[in-house]
């Protein structure tokens, strides 16, 4: 029966149908739902790994053992997994292995706009690029066939608009696939002598893949009567082109984005007057065409910045568009904010109050950078808060300065630990604050090694952060409740004053977790409130000033009481327990 599925859900369905039996991933928008959805199939073992490198290596191990395996990550996660990636390109696979990577053109929820297609070319690993959910399902299954036929991992490359759009799919049946493991040192032990023998095999494999790309059905030409222009495109850009042009111009729709065909593109180019390449982000297909000496237009018209839309494509192709009525009023922006009751809020308020230099990391708590808290100095990548702070303290006069790294529980597990080892080993004096909200928050509540539960929701081993930090060699490890502003203040003042590395674990579960019980909303006393706005310094969406008095939004307030601690006139009070 036909059904609506997110692109990510369709990849998960494809994994199921292809007989994939091992999945290991780290969450990252927009890739997360692939792994969450595949975990619902009991035939598939699925887990959250602490990071993408571990996930990819685990998937490789499962492939080695003879099973069809998979790992998923967002574009920046592929950077973390790049080390195993390039060598797995050499070894190839045993059971089929597919790598899901999701780009985020437009940076809806990312720190950069990198184009993962470059990784396919650089690591010499073929990449399929679906344009909707039906293709996401079909291409995932095809990827396993290619993986085993050509002895290589295969990428499924998603993007926000394919991952997070639902469209119609026709699900099918699952097949079971299994091979046996046989020891093969020349294939799997990549020391120089063996790797030198593998590299020519990889190059030969690419030549064969190019031949496949010349004739495969997923690189198709859709005819159009007007040959004044021909368009080569893929993924969501294909959808915009078709939306704008319909069947007017011939279109080459690429399903495999690396390696690219040569003769097929030459023939297509020769059949049209002007060849136009429509691709989001970098010049990739266009660069390929230029290498082949084919005249074409691409990045001269279409920007390498941001995502496309049908109007943008229409405008660049000279097709008229209409627009609606823009309202003549100043519409204030509505940026994302920390939720009411967020346990991070009290900590960030205290950091800002103490004028602490705070190197940040990746997670919900990045929102601590937003006014009025404005408590962060940097956000780079997973783990960079700790290692960055180490360098910062070593390179500057820290006497009398308060310098901290702020990192979440999941991010600390991902790649904060090695930074802390560096601090202990090389004797830093900074303070690491692990904001432990007992979940991976920003990506939508995924379990991690510190939560005590696994991806399937079953009880699992729980890493004890205090014990771990002490074992690394940090002598000063303390835990604070971020709802307790006085305790936060004392911990930050004391730990940043000592001349040795220290860890503060700011611990309280995310207010959005279902098991977290909220207090009754705070009660604002209009008679006592003088409108000093002390409570407004924490940027809580549940507090606003109405007619010069603090007002609590009872539908949002969780009664965390952080605002009440700021009010010197007791105008904000906890409700009496009944």
């Amino acid at each position: 029966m036909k059904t609506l599925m997110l692109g990510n859900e369709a990849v998960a369905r494809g994994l199921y149908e292809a007989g994939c039996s091992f999945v290991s991933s780290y969450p990252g928008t927009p890739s997360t739902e692939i792994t969450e959805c595949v975990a619902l199939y009991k035939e598939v073992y699925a887990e959250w790994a602490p990071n993408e490198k571990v996930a990819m290596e685990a998937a490789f191990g499962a492939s080695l053992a003879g099973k069809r395996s998979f790992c998923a990550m967002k574009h920046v996660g592929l950077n973390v997994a790049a080390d195993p990636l390039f060598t797995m390109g050499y070894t190839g696979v045993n059971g089929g292995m597919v790598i899901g990577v999701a780009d985020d053109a437009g940076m809806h929820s990312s720190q950069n706009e990198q184009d993962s297609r470059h990784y396919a070319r650089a690591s010499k690993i073929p990449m399929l690029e679906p344009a909707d959910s039906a293709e996401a399902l079909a291409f995932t299954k095809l990827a396993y066939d290619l993986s085993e036929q050509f002895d290589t991992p295969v990428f499924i490359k998603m993007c926000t608009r394919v991952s997070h759009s639902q469209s119609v799919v026709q699900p099918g049946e699952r097949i079971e696939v299994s091979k046996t493991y046989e020891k093969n040192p020349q294939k799997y032990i990549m020391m120089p002598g063996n790797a030198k023998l593998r590299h020519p095999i990889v190059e030969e494999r690419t030549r064969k893949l190019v031949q496949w790309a010349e004739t495969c059905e997923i690189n198709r030409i859709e005819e159009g009567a007007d040959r004044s222009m021909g368009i080569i495109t893929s993924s969501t850009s294909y959808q915009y082109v078709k939306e704008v042009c319909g069947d007017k111009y011939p279109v080459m729709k690429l399903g495999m984005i690396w390696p690219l065909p040569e003769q097929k593109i030459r023939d297509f180019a020769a059949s049209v007057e002007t060849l136009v390449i429509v691709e989001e982000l970098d010049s990739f297909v266009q660069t390929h065409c230029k290498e082949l000496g084919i005249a074409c237009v691409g990045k001269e018209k279409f920007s390498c910045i941001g995502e496309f839309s049908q109007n943008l494509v229409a405008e660049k192709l000279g097709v008229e568009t209409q627009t609606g009525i823009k309202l003549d009023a100043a519409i204030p922006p509505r940026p994302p904010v920390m939720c009411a009751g967020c346990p991070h809020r009290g900590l960030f308020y205290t950091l800002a109050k103490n004028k602490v230099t705070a190197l940040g990391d990746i997670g919900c708590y990045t929102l601590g950078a937003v006014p009025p808290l404005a408590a962060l100095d940097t956000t780079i990548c997973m783990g960079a808060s700790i290692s960055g702070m180490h360098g910062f303290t070593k390179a500057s006069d820290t006497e009398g300065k308060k310098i901290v790294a702020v990192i979440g529980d999941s991010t600390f597990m991902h790649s904060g630990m090695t930074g802390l080892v560096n601090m202990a080993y090389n004797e830093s004096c900074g303070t690491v604050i692990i904001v432990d909200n007992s979940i991976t928050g920003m990506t939508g509540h995924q379990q991690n090694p510190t939560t005590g539960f696994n991806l399937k929701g079953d009880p699992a081993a729980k890493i004890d952060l205090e014990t771990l930090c002490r074992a690394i060699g940090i002598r000063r490890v303390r835990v604070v409740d971020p709802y307790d502003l006085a305790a936060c203040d004392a911990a930050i003042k004391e730990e940043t004053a000592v001349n040795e590395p220290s860890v503060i674990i700011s611990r309280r579960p995310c207010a959005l977790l279902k098991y977290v019980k909220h207090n009754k909303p705070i009660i604002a006393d209009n008679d006592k409130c003088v409108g000093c706005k002390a409570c407004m310094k924490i940027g809580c969406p549940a507090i606003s000033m109405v007619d010069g008095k603090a007002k609590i939004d009872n539908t949002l307030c969780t009664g965390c009481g952080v605002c009440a601690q700021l009010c010197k006139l007791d105008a904000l009070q906890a409700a009496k327990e009944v």
Partner: protein
Amino acid sequence: MKTQNIMIVGVGGQGSLLASKLLGRMLLQKGYDIKVSEVHGMSQRGGSVVTYVRFGDKVYSPVIDKGEADFIVSFELLEAARWTEFLKPGGKIVVNTQTISPMPVITGAAEYPQGLAEKMQDAGLDVDAFDALALAEQAGSSKAVNIVLMGHLSRYFDFAEAEWLDAIEKSVPAKFLELNKTAFMLGRNA
């Protein structure tokens, strides 16, 4: 059939994903080609969110662009005003008159514009404004605003009431079914 475009806009956390799920299921039952494009990740944290629902014989783009929306269904007044440019000439805005201050307004860096519903009407926009929050509360939960709005939107489509209620049954957990059906009917009759 020419592709129909519905934008669902609001504030992250207001429940627009359930609204689009319901709409998607309804349209699938009717045999249309459909695309529903959602926002996940950071914007969900109280930011401005938009979901695009498109249906017809063949739908290509997953998003709706300026001048294309047949309907804008807004969970909040300011959000309706933010997206008016996306409305097609002759399109309709269905808006909940509830207001939620964004952080720049809360901190005093900006003002929440007054009289937005009237401003939209004065600008020549076809606005159907009503208090969906009050109806949701009447149905039993302020969280049912999403279904109240879908109920009101249903007035503009020729689909049978029973088909909508059937889609609700398949979209919400059993223990909230009655509440959501009530919310839908309150919105439909408003």
